[in-house]
């Protein structure tokens, strides 16, 4: 559905993303992994047409650069990392903005559909009870869910997420990832996301692009990419041993609890 060829983003002389290519097929959840400064968020911004880049990004063969912003938004929904609200909009108003791409004189008859989509998105994210609440009064998790509801309402075919569960409590983390997984189950959809937590990435991703210093180090099905050999090289440490040690702390508790 979505593919990138030789994408390069430069900030001055430095190439933050350096010749990365990727392919995203229907039903896939492509994880962009890699340490800080690998260029993951910048690559996402480039796909969202938010930063100037070289190379070509195609949507079913069509160059994204040539698309109008509204066309683009009907195909690709972006949930970015920095989302704050300056004014006391209601949750419903912010979610409703997701329907912007469907506005236009001749589409005005679709108001009913807009309402339905907004309601569905609110229901999916468990925000029906907060629909009239001011965005300024929401907690971090509620805010993140509200913006997720906005991209759901946008009804794109590809979701692009930058750290969708960043700074969230564990229960919200699980909730949000499950929500996205449920969304992906519908035909004709795909997800591309930056996830810092390697365990989460491996748990939910189907495919991955491992990035290091702007370049793609490995890509393909998740199990083939997230191997100790790749990860250790990129992170400069024994990743599996460290994560195993972290999890190992809980094993004893779990056993003790069960017996």
């Amino acid at each position, binding site marked *: 559905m979505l593919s990138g060829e030789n994408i390069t983003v430069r900030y001055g002389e430095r190439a933050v993303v350096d010749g990365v290519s990727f392919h995203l097929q229907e039903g896939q959840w492509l994880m962009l992994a890699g340490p800080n400064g690998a260029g993951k968020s910048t690559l996402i911004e480039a796909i*969202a*047409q*938010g930063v100037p880049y070289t190379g070509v990004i195609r949507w079913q063969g069509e160059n994204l650069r040539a698309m*109008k*912003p*509204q*066309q*683009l*938004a*009907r195909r690709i*929904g*972006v*949930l*970015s990392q*920095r*989302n*704050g*609200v*300056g*004014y*006391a*909009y*209601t949750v*419903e*108003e*912010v979610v409703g*903005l*997701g329907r*912007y*791409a469907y*506005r236009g004189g001749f589409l005005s008859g679709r108001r009913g559909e807009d*309402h339905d989509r907004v*309601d569905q998105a609110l229901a999916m994210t468990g925000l029906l009870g907060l629909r*009239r609440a001011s*965005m*300024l009064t929401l907690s971090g998790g509620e805010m993140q869910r509200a*913006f997720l509801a*906005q*991209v759901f309402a*946008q009804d794109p075919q590809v979701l692009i997420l930058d750290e969708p569960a960043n700074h969230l409590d564990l229960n919200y983390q699980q909730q949000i990832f499950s929500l996205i997984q449920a969304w992906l189950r519908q035909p004709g959809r795909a997800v591309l996301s930056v996830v810092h937590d390697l365990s989460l990435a491996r748990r939910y991703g189907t495919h991955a692009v491992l990035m290091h210093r702007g370049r793609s180090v490995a890509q393909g099905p998740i199990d083939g990419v997230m191997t100790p050999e790749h990860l250790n090289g990129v992170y400069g440490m024994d990743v599996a041993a460290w994560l195993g040690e972290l999890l190992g702390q809980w094993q004893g508790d779990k056993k003790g609890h069960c017996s």
Partner: protein
Amino acid sequence: MNDTRTLRRERFAPLTYALLTAALLLAMILCVCVGSVPISLSDTVTAVWNALWGLPIPQTIAKNIILNVRLPRVLCVAQAGASLSLCGAAMQGLLRNPLADGSTMGVSSGAALGAVIAMAAGFTLPGTGYGGVMVTAMAFAFGSLVLILSLAYALDHSLATHSIILIGVIFTMFISSIISLVVTFASDHTRSLNFWTLGSFSGVNYDQAKLLALALALCGGVIMRYSHELNAFAVGEDNARHVGVNVKRVKLVILITVSALIGVCVSISGTVSFVGLVMPHIARMLVGPNHKRLLPASLFAGAIFLLLADLAARTLFSPIELSIGVVTSLVGAVAFVIIFYRTRKAR
């Protein structure tokens, strides 16, 4: 269904608008009836009524004062107030910055400088009389806006911060000194410094009222058409782009429109500060931040506020007239501190 009903209520609140319209009409009537020269209500009504139907008006003083002095002035003041407030609301939304406004961002003083220079240099467009001044004011307003935005952006890559206001205020001071310089050297050709820095509606006429009406209808219409986009910008510019707003084009159109409208206002009345800054906040308290409702509410609030401010300027120390900027700054600054304090506390 319950949900559709709440959504519809969001799109238009007839009661709020009815109240605002009533308040505006009341303010206009008050401003026509009250002035530094007392004229009886019946004379006032007769003058307006007879003029409407083309009948002769018996009382000449009432006729001259009401029809040739107060009425054009009230019309100009109301429309300028509405325009400035609308521009403030649009900028506060577009930049997601509650401190944005023509006067805090140097647009008004830029426009004033343009007007002063055009007057000093005797720049006129053929056949339009005052047109050269107005066009120069618009161009300078837009130039200042672009300059300030690019400076602010170069400083910290965001327009939602306070540094933009800081730059605007410094820019305003800088421009004011240039204005006073030009006024000093070309005092015979431009209006006084007082006019440019504090504003005045003294001596406005029906032609200017018509011009304002045209500018407000055109520019106001454009701004109102962009209320969805302004909502998206007010939530966040990145978010606006993600939901499919053509951010570059919308930003450009809004900034040009705002500059043009402020340019027209400034060339007619000088710089009147605080209207565009404070009134959108009051409107936001009344109807919320959604621009579908906020923009019309700001129009009303700005018109009503400026009408009352001008009434005070005209009558408080009669027969002496104050500069309208003295009144708006006095009231506006206090109101702004209260509003800002309250919204900060509410977070």
